[in-house]
């Protein structure tokens, strides 16, 4: 991917999130911290916006005066950017990739915040549609990223709407009273896996969730047992 396209994707992403936050402004912290290089940035943004228009990704920049006290900078006094259908689609895909990647890193790989962010930023440019569809299915067509922002749905999610159930979910997300078959377990340490398997909790076993608070209570066969939430999050089940 050329540097230029990469930059454009970043810009589209910012426009999307700014719009989501109810802002028409491109806040300075979105592009870079610190205001010293504001002039250079201003120039960069202006060029980016021009580029968007050149490529038919944006259609219009309406005149909206920047209100006082709002951090931001003016781009020729014209701030509001509307995306063309093509720009819209492209921005949505980037956001989708980014947020699915965030979710994957947070929930499955349990990386810390900084790693999640940098990882997701790289991933969003790399993942092919087929891969991202698999990730989406794997995560059970989630609606929200770890920060609570919506993940734009795609065809695979719409298909999934028909048979409603996500393929795989964490035990803690299983509806109360329902059964699930364990698909895999991602324990933080080995002893946990040994402990669980000694009680018969291995992939293929069918478990039922009874309660979440104050501790998780599940049953496997005729055994009821209590678990930490932390462990319930590491057991992935498919609804039986």
């Amino acid at each position: 991917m050329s540097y230029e396209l990469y930059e454009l994707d970043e810009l589209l992403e910012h426009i999307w999130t700014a719009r989501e936050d109810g802002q028409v402004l491109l806040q300075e912290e979105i592009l870079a911290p610190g205001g010293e290089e504001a002039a250079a940035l201003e120039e960069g943004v202006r060029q980016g916006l021009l580029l968007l228009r050149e490529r038919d990704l944006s259609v219009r920049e309406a005149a909206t005066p920047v209100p006082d006290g709002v951090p931001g900078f003016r781009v020729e006094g014209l701030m509001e950017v509307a995306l063309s259908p093509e720009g819209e689609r492209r921005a949505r895909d980037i956001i989708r990739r980014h947020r699915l990647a965030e979710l994957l890193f947070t929930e499955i790989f349990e990386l810390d915040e900084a790693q999640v962010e940098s990882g997701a930023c790289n991933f969003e440019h790399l993942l092919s549609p087929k891969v991202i569809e698999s990730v989406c299915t794997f995560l059970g067509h989630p609606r929200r990223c770890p920060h609570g922002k919506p993940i734009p749905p795609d065809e695979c999610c719409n298909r999934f709407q028909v048979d409603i159930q996500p393929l795989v979910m964490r035990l803690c997300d299983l509806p109360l009273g329902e059964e699930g078959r364990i698909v895999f377990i991602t324990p933080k340490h080995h002893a946990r896996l040994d402990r669980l398997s000694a009680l018969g909790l291995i992939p293929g076993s069918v478990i039922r969730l009874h309660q979440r608070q104050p501790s998780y209570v599940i049953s496997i066969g005729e055994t009821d047992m209590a678990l930490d939430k932390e462990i319930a999050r590491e057991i992935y089940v498919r609804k039986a």
Partner: protein
Amino acid sequence: MHNHHKAKEVPLKEGERVVLVGNPNVGKSAIFGLLTGSYVTVSNYPGTTVEITRGAAHLNKKRYQVIDTPGVNNLLPLSEDERVTRDILLSEDSHRIVQVIDSKNLRRGLLISLQLAEMELPFLLDLNMEDEARSRGITIDTDRLTQILGVGTVSTVATRRKGLDRLVGGLSQLRASSLRIDYGEPIESSLRQVVELLPQAYISRRALGLMLLAGDESLKGWLHQNLSAAAIEKIEAICLSLQEKFSHPLSYVITEIRLRWVDSILSQVVAAEKMERSSWGTTLGQWSTHPIWGIPFLLAILYLTYRFVGVFGAGTLVNFFEQTLFGRYVNPAAIRLVKAAIPLPFLQELLVGDYGLITMALTYAIAIVFPIVGTFFVIFGLMEDSGYLPRLAVMSNRVFKVMGLNGKAVLPMVLGLGCDTMAVLTTRILESNKERLIVILLLALGVPCSAQLGVILGMLGGVSLKATILWSFTVVAVIIAVGFLAARVLPGKGSDFILELPPLRLPQISNIVIKTAARIEWYLKEAVPLFALGTLFLFFLNWFGLLKAIEELASPVISGLLGLPTKATGAFIVGFLRRDYGAAGLYALAKQGQLDPIQVVVSLVTITLFVPCIANFFMIVKEKGLKVALAMAGFIFPFAILVGGMLNWLLRWMQVQL
């Protein structure tokens, strides 16, 4: 090499040992009781038995030794009690095994059966709790199971003595299982290499080899005794290179393969009707762990306990025993008798004086502590047998997390309310050393045992509800604060909260009666001699005029810091031996009107935080070594007095009215 592959019968010979093994809470101790006629504690929660118990049995006119073991879920041990069981199997004399299985949880039982089969040890399957399985629509084709495993099976309901004759009959026909699991490549070829390096042992080399492949750390000691350093190195290299071929740890891979075999056996022998699991037990069980209803449920139980132990036991019964029985009959009669029979004033004082063996030791032990302990043990037995205790763990998990523990720790802590010394042993069900240390410390520091609790509640009941709450709040706050700090100071880590919840069952009156009687007997044997010892000590101090000297010496602490009358010194001295005895001494002082409400609360908080008793101290020495025990005692006594002093100062400064 033993060749059991042809499933030959191994008759049990005179004097031989039978080892009971099985998952936790399947009824091994109940079976043990049936076979030997001797009582071991039977309860409805996993982890009741943490030590092996031996007993003699006369069956079919022959004498056997029967051994009860702590429950295990896997013969790859993860905690100390599980290791005890595995080590029994590795040792020489335990070649006869009865595996007790909870019939409704056959899957978990068979995971162990397969390992026994692998060890090539002769055994018998006892499908216990057959009634519960049937009521849940589970039927087991025992003929088919016998055919697959090549060992005998019998069904029993131990708590109702059903099937005992079948079990005894089966004992004479133990067989080693003919079943062999194929672990597939590459495990099998690595296993062959390891087996070649192993010496003969009491269990099959294949089973040992699998334990080693699974990385069983607890076998290290055995390895170094039985193998050369070069062989150990080779084994380690084989394990490492095998592990590289799997993404999961080998222990898990092996367990998973076993479970697949179990599942294929299950599909041939178990027929389960789909039944709605709904009974009073299930419903009550759900309430007892409900995030909202669980709390009133707990409070209701606490209130009933208070009514029965605090009001009936510590009130009605103690009044009867102390004032009527001892006050009017026993003590006056003893005094008359002693004065008439023994002319020596020294002996008179020793027996019936202020610090007399009868008038003080026996009166405290029988009249004050015994009724309270007795009523408490009844309630406690009910809690144990109903299966409520593990549910309490569900409710309290979060609180224990603050102290670096998890809900499981509620078991030893609540058992500590019965007896702190026994509870120290129960800490073996906890997985990490750090957790065991924290719980042992908290038990020794803040959990009052039944004897002491009763005396304390009796005393506080005489002051006010406010005083009771203040005392409870202070002690709980101290426990949590010390636990919180200990969790941060002590090295090591906690463990996961994974705890089985047995079904709620209606407690059997007979078991409650036997258990309470056994515990009271134990209390009398344990406490009365120590009470006597403490009294003797006080008596001699008093006789030689040393008590006055000590009272003066201790007065800056007792009167100055704690704001108590100097007479309380005696109570604290015996408190070093048994804190319930100390509390009983304070109780007597309070009854004589020598303590004001603040003094009652301060003295009780201080004595509660003392080390429970000398037996508890020795138990800590036994479990954790002298150094740890001394360190704990060295922390606890000054700390108890410090907290008492701070409380005294605070209450007086704030001019609290109690």
